[in-house]
């Protein structure tokens, strides 16, 4: 098995007319490479996905994955601070990075012939980051400003952060991706060096290229640039399953704001945590989310916002592809003449109906028609296609799951939707949070503050 394992899988995607092929390879050093051809335009996106994110972090160093993502632009011996983005820019590229609960990813979108530029730079910083202390001291300040902008000064984001911290006890999803401010303040360059050494290696990464490329050529390039990198011993993150919830949790978040906001989250399984005999449940939950919130004809918009007009906005959300046990979320802002309590009652009414009545065929048909269409629409973006592949691979599923996902959704029955509603929408696994607006201008309190505040 010297060199490359070579072509292990080629498959025509099921999309009618797309004519794209996806190829999967693995280098000797453990780096996985997935190439998807899309020849519509002479461009490509190259993404490197690392299996590390905020859910790998422990208390005291929260936010470290994201700070390290920032520091990945601060230079190697070969390409010192400031040169990475300049080289990409001079080649007409767009480059950036993102950190999630379960991944850290880096990308360049470029004219297709520039792929070697991307590989040269990404391979170099996979193993050779210098992490200069003076750059770190400035960059961690930048991240604190990012936190102030995204969370501290955004009341709904602030409330959501507290909500998650309350919903989970032992599951690391309780920590914000950007980290707690006190952890950012105490972060040290040594912490980052350890984190980088622990997770950044070819055998903990997936390289995804989508675009106007020849897979064999991409493979040769990957071999040239990434092939020489040494693998590491990657110790799996410790398993931190969430304690079984034993009853409803409620909290208030008081912050300067104008509008109240309600969040309700139920503990639910995801594809990776579902039992094998009930592995259809995450797909049923996805369909259920579509019944509630799949467009303006779905139940929340047509009944909660338009019909009963209890909310000015209402949404439901669920992601079957989190790495750990997750939440089925309902959230919304009550209409002016309604309270957060009214909205909670209304949401509960919706869930009760899902428990008691099977979803009519026409509604299910609508959700499935939308799923079929969305699958084609997604093909319009090479970036999105690469995102799907990278995120699946990074949580430990195959990119082939992106195909399977649609097949599994198609197969969901009204009985299965009802079954997950009955099983999971009970108060035992519920967390409810309310943003209680406090005066923005202390001299001139908004009418809603105080009057609407519900104590639970």
């Amino acid at each position: 098995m010297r060199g490359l394992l070579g072509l292990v899988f080629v498959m025509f995607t099921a999309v009618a007319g797309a004519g794209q092929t996806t190829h999967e390879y693995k280098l000797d050093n453990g780096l996985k490479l997935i190439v998807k051809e899309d020849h519509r335009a002479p461009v490509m996106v190259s993404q490197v996905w690392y299996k590390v994110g905020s859910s790998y972090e422990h208390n005291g160093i929260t936010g470290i994955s994201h700070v390290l993502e920032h520091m990945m632009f601060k230079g190697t011996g070969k390409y010192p601070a400031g040169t990475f983005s300049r080289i990409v820019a001079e080649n007409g590229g767009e480059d950036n990075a993102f950190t999630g609960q379960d991944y850290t990813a880096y990308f360049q979108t470029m004219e297709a012939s520039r792929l070697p530029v991307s590989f040269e730079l990404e391979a170099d910083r996979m193993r050779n980051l210098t992490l200069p202390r003076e750059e770190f001291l400035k960059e961690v300040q930048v991240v604190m400003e990012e936190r102030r902008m995204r969370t501290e000064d955004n009341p709904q984001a602030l409330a959501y952060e507290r909500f998650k911290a309350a919903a989970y006890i032992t599951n690391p999803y309780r920590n914000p991706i950007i980290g707690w401010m006190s952890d950012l303040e105490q972060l040290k360059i040594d912490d980052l060096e350890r984190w980088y050494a622990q997770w950044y290696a070819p055998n903990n990464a997936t390289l995804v290229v989508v675009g106007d490329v020849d897979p064999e050529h991409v493979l040769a390039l990957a071999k040239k640039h990434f092939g020489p990198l040494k693998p590491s011993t990657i110790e799996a993150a410790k398993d931190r399953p969430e304690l079984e919830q034993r009853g409803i949790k409620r909290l208030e978040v008081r912050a300067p704001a104008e509008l109240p906001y309600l969040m309700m989250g139920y503990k639910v399984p995801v594809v990776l945590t579902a039992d094998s005999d009930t592995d259809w449940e995450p797909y049923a939950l996805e369909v259920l989310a579509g019944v509630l919130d799949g467009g303006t004809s779905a139940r929340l918009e047509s009944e909660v916002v338009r019909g009963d007009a209890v909310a000015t906005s209402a949404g439901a959300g669920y992601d079957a592809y989190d790495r750990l046990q997750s939440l089925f979320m309902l959230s919304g802002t009550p209409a002016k003449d309604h309270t957060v309590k009214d909205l909670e009652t209304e949401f509960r009414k919706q869930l009760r109906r899902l428990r008691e009545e099977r979803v009519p065929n026409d509604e299910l048909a609508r959700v499935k028609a939308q799923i079929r269409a969305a699958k084609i629409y997604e093909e319009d973006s090479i970036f999105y296609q690469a995102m799907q592949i990278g995120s699946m691979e990074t949580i430990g599923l195959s990119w082939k799951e992106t195909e399977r996902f649609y097949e599994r959704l198609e197969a969901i029955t009204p009985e299965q939707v009802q079954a997950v509603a009955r099983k999971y929408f009970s108060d035992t696994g519920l967390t409810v949070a309310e943003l209680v607006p406090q005066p923005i201008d202390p001299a001139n309190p908004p009418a809603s503050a105080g009057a609407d505040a519900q104590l639970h």
Partner: protein
Amino acid sequence: MKQMLRVGTIVVGLVFSGVAAALPEIQSWTTGKGARVLYVHASELPMVDVRLVFDAGSARDREQSGIARLTNAMLDQGAAGLDAGEIAGGMEQRGAVLSGGSERDTAWLALRSLTDPELFEPALELFGKVISQPDFPPEDFAREQRRMLAGLQYQKQQPRSIASRAFFQQLYDQHPYASDPTGTEETVAALTVDELEAFYRRYYVASNAVVVIVGDVPEAQARQIATGLADNLETGEPAAALPAVDTLEAQQKVHLEHPSAQSHVMMGQPGVQRKDPDYFPLYVGNHILGGSGLVSRISEEIREERGLAYSAYSYFVPMERKGPYTLGFQTRNDQRDEALSVLRETVTTFIAEGPTAQELDAAQKNIVAGFPIRVASNSKIAEYLAVIGFYDLPLDYLETFPDRVQAVTNNQIKDAYRRRVHPQTMVTVIVGGEAEAQPAL
């Protein structure tokens, strides 16, 4: 069917692999009632985007601030006797996506659908009804009006929104661009169904519309689609020309208190219009100054060198009349003055000295080499067609774009910046922290 499409894709793939053939071929014509159509045949995916763009943005609001936005939001709330749920259901049960929106210059409605005739034809028919036969049902109007008012409340808890509103007000004063497209609590609460209907009748007319079609439909079908949509509208009149934007005379500073950890700072002046002789030198110049992310000077000075902000930027928004030139950042309140003087210093130096030859070269390489990315999807092509059609840019705008960027010289940038960008008369808006004792200069 699958086989045929696959072969079709291979042929197109070969065409695209030639370097010069990367650009979409734009076809344009005018419908019988005077709507301009721009069309690109993109056959690779079995989908189509249809968009109607009207000169019906908030620049047409006058005293009824918010009317353009609310009129646009009401179109799919009832049409040809169908209610909001029937319209939404009619689209969504076919996987079609109906969307709309409005900003200062334009208001639009868009349909994205699969091209399977069983799905597309009924979705298109419904789309036509929404555009040409809206009912403005009173109950739905009352609800959408309440939602818009709630949206205004929401803005008050977002320092960025507060800053943007104040910034436009200071920049444009009496000009129609001054008001926010979302209106004010007072003006939105005062709007009536009759007023919305009158606004609709005046501006949602064929001679005030551009039709954009991108997707897997042949030209003959595209012509039918455009005619079917536009010619159900009244011919009407194009909207009147907007007044020119006045030049700012004196420096203005507005500081609004907000209980936020950061100050949001926006500095600027009226910038360029779409057909502006200085557009390319200013665009390339700004790319170097603050428009190219982390490698631009402003980001380099404020973020990379000093760690003062997550985002520090500058950008032109070319509009029908001079759109804003905005420079800004957000930072911890106690660092605001430091960051602001760095921003001012950076701009002043750039105007005095212009970019270096190396910077200009790097910027041109970035824009020219990155050009194919800008037109790499149906969505992006549709957006460009809307811009080209609405602002009446030449059909070869995309084709000539890289050459025009490449032709910009250092002296042109310096000259354009000296004539057009004036830090000494810029508006500065700060939201956050406590205001100083003497807030206005």
